[in-house]
């Protein structure tokens, strides 16, 4: 049984469907990449998984629990976390952001988590009293990542972690992700940057609201047709 | 093939304009004839004044999204512009009315920067602006111009019939203006701005200029209405023409009927002002309560006004 199991999901705005018949699984502890161009429906899928958009039809199951109708806060308590493109609350201090990420933890556990994250990411400790708005773009991504880790989720939904980052920072981001591979939460990463395929366990390709391909990164590499059609790669 | 489609579209367009034209025509005929049937001209007159004000609010709120709580400021300035023209410049009534409208438009130019504000900021700031205008007019320091707290006495120019006719004309012109704006490309540009100002600006629509034009037009409507209203009263205090309830009623009538349409404010004014006089006169104790509840219910269940009940089924409403 997969950690996250999505079956025949339809999501949209008003009566219009943006996603049609999406089926997707994420196994515990794996990194799954959701590839797709702008407007393919990646963010819509993540938002509906997080409960930020209403589902028209279909089912979302997290580890045997049907979460299709739950609100975002209930999903966080069930073990989901969502790293949006913005990712932080700019007006709050770094430490407050971390506290927000661990909102449902006990006070002691929250303090413990913050201490361990400060050890892993010392830049956050340095800036802990500063508002998040004073951080650079890369530092904000790190904070956003630390913020979702705070709640000790089982599955992290990442929306375009590479957006707005310099190529150097993208590499750093991938490295940080790799340190968490296989001994931490599972990841579902929505991206259009194929660099994120490196280290991924499984890939889905989303186009125009539908899954066009699924398989390992190697399978994708072998499928010249998909590569050419969606990524202009040859 | 394409040609016939164009002809069809053209026919539909003309048909719609014809239906639109029915409204000012009915307004004209209705208010011109009703004094012969119904003796209390004051009610008819005020219904017209509120209808014109409701159309002014409609123009501003329905087409640009600015809700002017302080709309009465323009109304009061119109009344005072008229009174000053009569008292100090010895203008005849009709010319004084035009002066009232113009003064109102000039004040609107001074307050143009308010359009930089959005939502509640605009609504409450416009209220503050109206309070400022009212208090400046009534201050003793202005006694040689506005007669300060003593109010205006224009009994020498009191002319109920002429002012009634002037009100009919201004109301019809106002209605026609709203029809034109709604059906011209300018109106569609306004709607685009209202929906999404950023995209509209990128599509090359002169956002600031379009809004400013509507702002001035609605100020002119309120100014002319206020001027005729003051003329019709001929004795008034600053409180009378700067009464906040005037804005409130005009806004409620517009919202009740349905903003962004031509019919909405007309319908809203007839129904609610009629109710106000039918129920309100005998027992207004509960009238404020009723229309307070009506507003709450409207916002929650029918934000488009009663017109939207008809529009909902895909019908065209002028």
């Amino acid at each position, binding site marked *: 049984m997969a950690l996250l199991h999505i079956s025949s999901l339809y999501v949209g705005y008003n009566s219009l469907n943006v996603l049609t018949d999406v089926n997707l699984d994420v196994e515990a502890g794996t990194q799954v990449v959701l590839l797709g161009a702008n407007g393919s429906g990646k963010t819509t899928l993540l938002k509906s998984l997080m409960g930020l958009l209403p589902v028209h039809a279909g089912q979302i199951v997290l580890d045997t629990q049907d979460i299709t109708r739950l609100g975002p806060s209930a999903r966080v308590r069930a073990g989901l976390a969502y790293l949006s493109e913005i990712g932080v609350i700019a007006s709050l201090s770094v430490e407050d952001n971390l506290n927000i990420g661990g909102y449902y933890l006990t006070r002691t556990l929250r303090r413990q988590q913050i201490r361990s994250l400060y050890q892993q990411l010392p830049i956050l400790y340095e800036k802990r009293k500063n508002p998040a708005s004073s951080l650079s773009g890369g530092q904000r991504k790190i904070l956003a990542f630390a913020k979702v880790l705070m709640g000790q989720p089982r599955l992290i939904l990442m929306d375009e972690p590479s957006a707005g980052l310099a190529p150097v920072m993208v590499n750093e981001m991938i490295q940080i992700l790799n340190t968490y591979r296989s001994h931490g939460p599972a990841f579902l990463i929505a991206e259009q940057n194929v660099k994120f395929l490196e280290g991924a366990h499984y890939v889905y390709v989303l186009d125009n609201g539908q899954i066009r391909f699924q398989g390992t990164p190697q399978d994708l590499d072998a499928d010249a047709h998909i590569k050419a059609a969606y990524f202009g790669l040859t | 093939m394409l040609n016939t489609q164009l002809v069809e579209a053209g026919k539909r367009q003309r048909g719609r304009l014809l*239906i639109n034209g*029915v*409204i000012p025509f*009915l307004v004209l005929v*209705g208010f011109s004839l*009703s004094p012969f049937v*119904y*003796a*209390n*001209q*004051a*009610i*008819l007159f*005020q219904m017209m004044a509120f209808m014109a004000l409701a159309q002014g609010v409609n123009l501003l709120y329905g087409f640009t999204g600015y809700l002017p709580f302080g709309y009465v400021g323009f109304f009061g300035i119109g009344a005072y512009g008229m009174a000053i023209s009569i008292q100090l410049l010895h203008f005849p009534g009709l010319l004084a009315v035009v002066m009232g409208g113009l003064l109102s438009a000039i004040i609107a130019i001074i307050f143009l920067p308010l359009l930089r504000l959005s939502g509640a900021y605009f609504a409450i700031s416009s209220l503050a602006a109206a309070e400022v205008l009212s*208090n400046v007019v*009534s*201050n*003793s320091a202005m006694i040689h111009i506005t007669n*300060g*707290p*003593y*109010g205006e*006495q224009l*009994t020498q120019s*009191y002319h*109920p019939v002429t002012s009634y006719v002037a009100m009919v004309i201004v109301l019809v012109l106002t209605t026609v203006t709203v029809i034109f704006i709604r059906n011209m490309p300018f109106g569609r540009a306004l709607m685009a701005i209202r929906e999404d100002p950023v995209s509209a600006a990128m599509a090359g629509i002169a956002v600031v200029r379009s809004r400013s034009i509507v702002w001035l037009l609605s100020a002119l409507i309120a100014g002319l209405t206020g001027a005729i209203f003051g003329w019709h*009263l*001929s*004795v*008034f*205090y600053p*409180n*009378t023409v700067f*009464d906040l*309830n*005037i804005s409130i009623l005009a806004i409620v009538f517009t919202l009740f009927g349905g903003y962004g349409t031509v*019919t909405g404010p*007309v*319908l809203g004014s*007839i*129904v609610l*002002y*009629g*109710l106000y*006089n*039918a*129920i*309100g*006169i*005998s*027992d*207004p*104790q509960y009238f*404020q309560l009723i229309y307070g509840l009506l507003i709450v219910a409207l916002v929650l269940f029918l934000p488009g006004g009663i017109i939207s009940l*008809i529009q909902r089924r895909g*019908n*065209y*409403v*002028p």
Partner: protein
Amino acid sequence: MKSTAILGMAAVLLSASLAGCGSSPSTAPSAKSIKDITIGTLYAKSGAFATSSMPEYSGLTFWASQINKTGGVYVKALHKKVPVKIVAYNDQSSATTATTLYSQLITVNHVNILVADFGSVLTSVAVPIAQEKKMLLFDQTGTGASFFTPSNPYIVLTSLPTSGLWPTSLAQYLIHKGYSRIAIVYATNDFDQSQDQTLVSKLKAAHITPVYNNGVPTSTSSYSVLLNNMSHTNPQAVIELGYPNNDIAFLQALKASGDHFNMVFTIFPGQLPQLFVSSVGPSSINNTYTYPAPPLLTFSHVNYGLNTAQFDLAFKKATGQSTNFLSIAGYNTGLIIQKTLSTANSLNQLSLRHAVSRFSGSLSTLDGTFKIDSKGAQIGETLPVGKITTNSKGRVSVQFVTSPNS
């Protein structure tokens, strides 16, 4: 074609709503067929003027019920007694609404007698309508001097002198006491500002210049700083001219400040003593000065209608309300109407007006001597100055410091 249906609906609604506004116009009654005298008036059940308007209206309706008990009012033109019927609408203190309602009374209800609502603001809009429709306006308490012009015979002020006359007694008293340091704060509305003007000009005529004379907005509700500023001028007399709300706020601030002046004067404790006792407490009006109005002011010589004591008793019995100045003012209006109808030779509005002029000066009611000038403005019924004493139970009494019959 839905839209035509809507427009049709709108037209129906228009006519329906207008029909709802009143009965359809009837033809003007001829003198012969008159079965009752209709008196049209407005009252404000809510809004800024409700406090004053409602007791005034009770006074008038009390008069009507009293007169109907005796078989009606004697109408000389008909040589018989005719019952009185009051037609009244609620204007909610809005001058705009009042306009349509005055018009309704005249054009739809065709009332025989038109009576204004309380105060200048609600009376003002009736003045041109009454003049245009040639209806005599019985103006009860609208004291604005500008209403009364030589060219307009269609107005008569019944129950108060015009506001410019009020400060006569006050100026007289201040001059008599030899106060040279006088501080005045007034609300900038026509009622108070015109009193300030009269007072200052009368003082100046006696070579007294007030040490402090400033206007404040009528909405002012905190007077502490103003009072502090006034006390810096070391005044002997502190005079506050305002509406009831201003007077309440002023007296409250005065009490809290602990300042003491030889004389403190406000207008409304003399008219609405109970309001002041209940809102600011009896001690805050104790030893202050005011214009005592009926019932604090009683006239020994009453030649028409009830005297104050009789009115107090009968009014309380009939309505359950206690007497205040405004209920007396409303009752007094009724008396003036009664006298007018019994004097006039016809029900024509101008002959009503002539009748009023004829008995002007000879009528003494519980509101004083009724006397109007040629413009219809009240010059009798002047108010003296008095000093208030209260006991802890809230009983208010007054000691006159100028002659009540001046």
